C-alpha cells in the first residue's frame, strides 16, 4: 500500500494533452487547465492564408504573364512612386516583367518546393526516427551516427553538385533540401519515441500479439504526430530560405520561371538604381518566414509544452 498517487496533486481534471491533433487545435477552450500560451496569432495566419491563396489561384490573380517581357517598360518603379505606372503595381524588372505577377507565381514554386521537401525530408526523418527509437540497439547506433554525419554535411555544396550533374529544376531542389531536413526530424522524433517506448501501452501491445511493424504504425506514429506537425511548421521557414539561397546561387529553378530567390538574385546587380526588384521579393520572404515561425511557436506551445526547450 505505498506506490499510489504518483500523479501530482495539482488541479484536478486537467485534460490529457493527448487529444487528436485537429481537435486540440480547434477546441480552443477545452485545452490545458491554466493556459499561459499566447493568444491565437491572427496576423501571421492572415499573411500565410493570403500567400497560400496567391499560390493556388496564381493564374486567376496575376495581372500579367510572369515571363512575358515588355522591354519598353523595363525597370519601372512601383505605382505609388514617381515614374511608376498604374498598370504595374509593384513595378517591373530589367526585362519589363511585372513584379506582382512574378511574385504571385513565385509563391507557387516556393510553396510547392516547401511542400515536397517537407514531405520527403520530414517523412524520411519520421520513419528513421521511429525505427531508430523503437528498435534501438545497434540499428539505433548506426542510424544516429548517420544523423550526426548529415548535420556536418555541406548541403549547399551538394546542391550545386546535384545541379551540375542532374541539371537544375524542382527535383534537384527538393532532393537537396530534403537532405538538409531529415536529420533534424529524425533526431527529435527518436527522442520522443524513446520516451514512448517506456510507456506500458507499448509493452502491452507486444503482449497482445502486435508485430513490431504494427506497434510502430498504430501505437508509436499516432503519438508522435503532434511533434511532427510542429516540426513541419517550424521548418517551412528553413525550406523557403534554402530554396531562395539555392536559386540565388543558380542551383535552383532555372530562369525565367519566377521564384522568390531567383527574383532577388536577378535584382541584386541593380539594387542601387532599382531597389524594388530585389527588395519586394525579399520582403515577401521575410513576411512569410516570420509568420510561419510565429505560427509554429504558437502551435508548439499549444500542442507540446515539452518541446519548448528546443
Amino acid at each position, binding site marked *: *500500500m*505505498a*506506490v*499510489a*498517487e*504518483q*500523479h501530482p*496533486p*495539482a*488541479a*484536478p*481534471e486537467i485534460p490529457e494533452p493527448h487529444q487528436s491533433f485537429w481537435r486540440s487545435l480547434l477546441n480552443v*477552450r*477545452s485545452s490545458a*487547465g*491554466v*493556459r*499561459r500560451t499566447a493568444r491565437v496569432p491572427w496576423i501571421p495566419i492572415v499573411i500565410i492564408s493570403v500567400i497560400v491563396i496567391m499560390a493556388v489561384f496564381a493564374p486567376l490573380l496575376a495581372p500579367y504573364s510572369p515571363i512575358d517581357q515588355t522591354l519598353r517598360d523595363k525597370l519601372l518603379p512601383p505605382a505609388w512612386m514617381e515614374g511608376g505606372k498604374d498598370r504595374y503595381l509593384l513595378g517591373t524588372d530589367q526585362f519589363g516583367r511585372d513584379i506582382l505577377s512574378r511574385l504571385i507565381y513565385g509563391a507557387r514554386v516556393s510553396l510547392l518546393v516547401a511542400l515536397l521537401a517537407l514531405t520527403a525530408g520530414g517523412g524520411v526523418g519520421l520513419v528513421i526516427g521511429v525505427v531508430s527509437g523503437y528498435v534501438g540497439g545497434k540499428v539505433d547506433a548506426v542510424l544516429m551516427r548517420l544523423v550526426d554525419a548529415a548535420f556536418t554535411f555541406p548541403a549547399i555544396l551538394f546542391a550545386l553538385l546535384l545541379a551540375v550533374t542532374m541539371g537544375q529544376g524542382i527535383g534537384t531542389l527538393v532532393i537537396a533540401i530534403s537532405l538538409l531536413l531529415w536529420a533534424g526530424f529524425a533526431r527529435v522524433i527518436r527522442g520522443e519515441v524513446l520516451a514512448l517506448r517506456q510507456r506500458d501501452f507499448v509493452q502491452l501491445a507486444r503482449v497482445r500479439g502486435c508485430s513490431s511493424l504494427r506497434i510502430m504504425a498504430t501505437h508509436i506514429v499516432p503519438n508522435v504526430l503532434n511533434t511532427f506537425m510542429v516540426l513541419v511548421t517550424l521548418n517551412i521557414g528553413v525550406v523557403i530560405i534554402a530554396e531562395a539561397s539555392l536559386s540565388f546561387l543558380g542551383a535552383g529553378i532555372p530562369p525565367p520561371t519566377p521564384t522568390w530567390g531567383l527574383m532577388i538574385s536577378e535584382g541584386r546587380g541593380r539594387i542601387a538604381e532599382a531597389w524594388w526588384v530585389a527588395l519586394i521579393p525579399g520582403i515577401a520572404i521575410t513576411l512569410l518566414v516570420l509568420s510561419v515561425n510565429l505560427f509554429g511557436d504558437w502551435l508548439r506551445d499549444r500542442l507540446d509544452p515539452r518541446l519548448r526547450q528546443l
Partner: protein
Amino acid sequence: MSDSAETILDVRDLHTHFFLRRGVVKAVDGVSFTLRKGEVLGLVGESGCGKSLTALSVMRLLPKGAARTVQGEIVLDGENILKRTPSQMREIRGRKISMVLQDPQTSLNPVFTIGDQLREALVRRAPAKLKEIIKQAVAALRRVDIAAPEQRIGQYPHQMSGGMKQRVVGAIAISGEPEVLIADEPTTALDVTIQLQYLKLLKRLQRENGMAILFITHDFGVVARMCDRVAVMYAGRIVECGPVKQIFEAPSHPYTRALIASVPKMTGTRGRLTAIDGQPPSLMNLPAGCRFASRCAHVEPRCLEAYPGTTQIGADHTADCWKIGSI
C-alpha cells in the same frame, strides 16, 4: 494528547480554490483543524481530496497564478501568516515551519552535492565559518542515521538510494529546528522495509525536537504507526477528526467507516471486500448537501439538501454527518 496542550498551528475555515477558464475548482473548501505542540496529526484522504493543497496553503507555496487562498486564517504560533509578506514568509519557512515532499528525486538538486544543499540551509539559519558549517552538516546527517556522513557530504544525490535521499531531505527540513513539520506522503515512493525505517526516524526526531508534525497520507497503516490524532478529508473538507485509537475502533462518519472496511486485512476472513461504490464528486460542481451522500449507504433526504454541521462526539472527536448517533 491532553487537552491542555498548547496549539501551535490553527487553521480556520480555509478555502483554497483553483481558478480555471472552465470554472472554479474548490479543492479546499472550509478546512479547519488545530495542531498542538509536539503532536503528530494525520491528514488522510484520497487523491484530489485537497490534503496536499491544504499543506501548500499553510506553507503559502501555492502554484502561482492558478490557486489562491480566498478565505480563512492560518494562525502559526499566534500570528496569522496569511497577512505576512512574501519576504517575511521566507523567514518563517524553514525556521518555524518546514516541509518534506513525496519524491526525494525531485526534492534535491541533482547538480549540487549533499553538503552544498545542507550548507545552504545551515548558513541561512546561522552564518558561520565554513569549517563550523561542515561540522554541523555532518552532525545533521548523523542525526538522520546516515552512515559515514563525512564521505556522504561530498556526494551527489544520484549516488544515493531513495531512502537515503529522503533522509537527507529530512535533515535539510529540520536543520532550522522548525516547530511544525509538514510531511506530504514522505514514504509513498519508498520500499516497505525502508518506509518503516523512515517512519521510525521521523518519530524519533519528533520526540527529540518536540516539533509538531502534520502528516499527510492516503494510507491508514501509516496513520496507525505515526499519528496521535487523525483528520479524514473528503472532497475538500474534513469529515471526521479525532484520536487515532477512537477513529480506528469506532469511526463515526460513514466515509471513514467504509474506507477502513475496504482495506484488505492481515488477519480474519479473506472474503469479499466491502467496496465503496461510485466516485468522489467533481470539485467544480459540488453538491449542495453532504459531499459523500451519493456514495453513502445511510443517505436520507436531508443529506442531499444541506451540508451537515460538525457534531461533537467525544471530548476530542468530531464528525460532519447528520446521522451521528443514529447509525
